[in-house]
């Protein structure tokens, strides 16, 4: 199921502005990789390049090579829609569809794919995904209610359920807990621990304890200066990054000397 990602010498642009330069790394299957670094260094930009979400912004494009199990996802014959089905994404702010019930939110990806599915199939997907997102017990009696009526933490877990309902192989999470209270944050971290059995996970986080708790590998991004492109400073097993980083900048950031 889970797949590996390799990025080689990736540059990412917003129109004429080069936001990220020369990034290369590998993400192992069934592992959690954390992206850390100061604001504006391009963590979200790199993450969004991994499932071709970057190009939905007018003028934005990616150079370099990104492969999923060896297949170039920016190849000329590749349909970005299929890439996004294979590499799902959870955003910083919970964003359930406001016109849909909890049930419809979970199956939105399946329904809008266009294939007809039976009611019992959908029911099974809803229960499975909500259980997978640790939300089933809280919402099983109100599946027909609007998703926007849930608390922030529940909405974020609903968005995770929605993302895993289409059975992606990789799950990208962009600061999924930064809008949540500590209890909901713990719930999501527990969830990430379970999800990594099935998915390859890449998570952007501002919280270094969180990176240390949930990830096996940590990538530190930094910015040479204002207006300059962000770069990947180093990527290594999380315990190495947090104990004996090779770069001074990493050590400074982790020990709180800047950022």
């Amino acid at each position, binding site marked *: 199921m889970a797949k590996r990602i390799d990025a080689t010498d990736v540059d990412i642009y917003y129109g004429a502005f080069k936001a990220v330069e020369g990034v290369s790394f590998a993400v192992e299957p069934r592992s959690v990789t954390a992206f850390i670094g100061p604001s504006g260094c391009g963590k979200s930009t790199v993450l969004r390049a991994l499932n071709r*979400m970057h190009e939905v912004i007018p003028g934005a494009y990616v150079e370099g090579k990104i492969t999923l199990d060896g297949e170039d996802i920016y190849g000329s014959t590749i349909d970005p829609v299929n890439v996004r089905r294979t590499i799902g994404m959870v*955003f910083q702010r919970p964003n359930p569809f406001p016109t849909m019930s909890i049930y419809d939110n979970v199956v939105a990806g399946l329904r809008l794919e266009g294939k007809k599915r039976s009611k019992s199939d959908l029911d099974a997907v809803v229960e499975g995904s909500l259980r997978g997102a640790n939300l089933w017990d809280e919402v099983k009696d109100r599946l027909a209610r609007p998703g*926007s009526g849930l608390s922030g933490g529940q909405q974020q877990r609903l968005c995770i359920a929605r993302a895993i309902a289409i059975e992606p192989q990789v799950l990208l999470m962009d600061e999924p807990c930064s809008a949540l209270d500590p209890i909901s944050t713990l719930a999501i971290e527990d969830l990430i621990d379970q999800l990594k059995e099935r998915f390859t996970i890449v998570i952007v986080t501002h919280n270094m304890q969180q990176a240390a708790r949930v990830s096996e590998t940590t990538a530190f991004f930094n910015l040479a200066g204002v207006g300059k492109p962000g770069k990947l400073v180093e990527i290594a097993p999380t315990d190495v990054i947090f104990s004996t980083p090779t770069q001074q900048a990493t050590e400074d950031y982790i020990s709180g000397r800047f950022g």
Partner: protein
Amino acid sequence: MSELTRDERAESEELLHRALAGARLPRWGIAAAAVGAIALAIILNLTTSVAGVAGTVVVAVLLFLAIQTTWSFRVEGRRHAVDRLATTAVYATFIVALAPLVAVLATVIVKGMSVISSTFLTTSMRNISPRSEGGGLYHALIGTLQQVGIAAMFGVPLGILTAIYLVEYAPFAKSRRLSRAISFFVDVMTGVPSVVVGLFIFTAFVLTLGMERSGFTASLALTILMLPVVVRSTEEMLRIVPRELREASYALGIPKWRTILKIVLPTALGGIVTGAMLAIARVAGETAPLLLTTFLSQSINTNPFKGPQAALPTFIWDQFTSATDASVNRAWGGALVLIVLVMVLYGAAKIIARYTGVKRG
């Protein structure tokens, strides 16, 4: 504390209260000022050159402002006086703005109700002379429903599709020339007087293409008139749908066109429907272009593609210019029916939007 007598304690509470609350006008102050102002205005009306209802009302309002402000200034101080002055000014402006609207509605309802009957709603003006009572606007109602219906059938989808292009696709186009041109023409169309649009349709379709004047040619003129309104209102509504929702949909591997159809449009539906209804309501009352494109008719014509067709606005205009008591009354009846029609459409749109759009927890 315990050494204070009950009276002393009450007095200290009173002092504290006054320090916090400050002196205020008594509750009956505003009423008293109003009564005084009205009384003074009436006396002035009787003894000086202040005359007429309108004049007296204006004088009373000014007197009320003066009395209330001065009194408040003496008792409560500057801040409260200014506050009261501003509050009164806001209410007065509100009433001034609302008065014409209420007056128009009331006149239309009172005068219109006097001629509304089942005959009025179900017969035409065929063989009825302007001077005689009776007759009706069935032919005009049919005409308006068909003409506006056809115009909406063209104008609403075309307008929504144009707006979708401008908001969802134009930013990704290689060059912005097309979207700039569309925006420019939409702006120009908003500004073109409706009579010119009527003239254009008459020249292009009747004179040049040789079509006959009919309800359909009228609908074409109405389509052009409603297009810019639909485009602009839909555009605004699509722009306020958060980018996060579109991205959430793309991230689920939902193609762009389905995202627009199933996520963006439903989210913006309430506003889009309201905008479309306002456009329809606007063209339902257009008179000049109809005179040029279908002219008048006194009889029922249920075929919008053949021969002149009546419509409510032209019916009102025709009856009013006949200038007999009976025909002017019929004009008011037509006005009432037109207003009710617009209100019904508006109400229906609100209900549709309510049950299909964003769900509220």
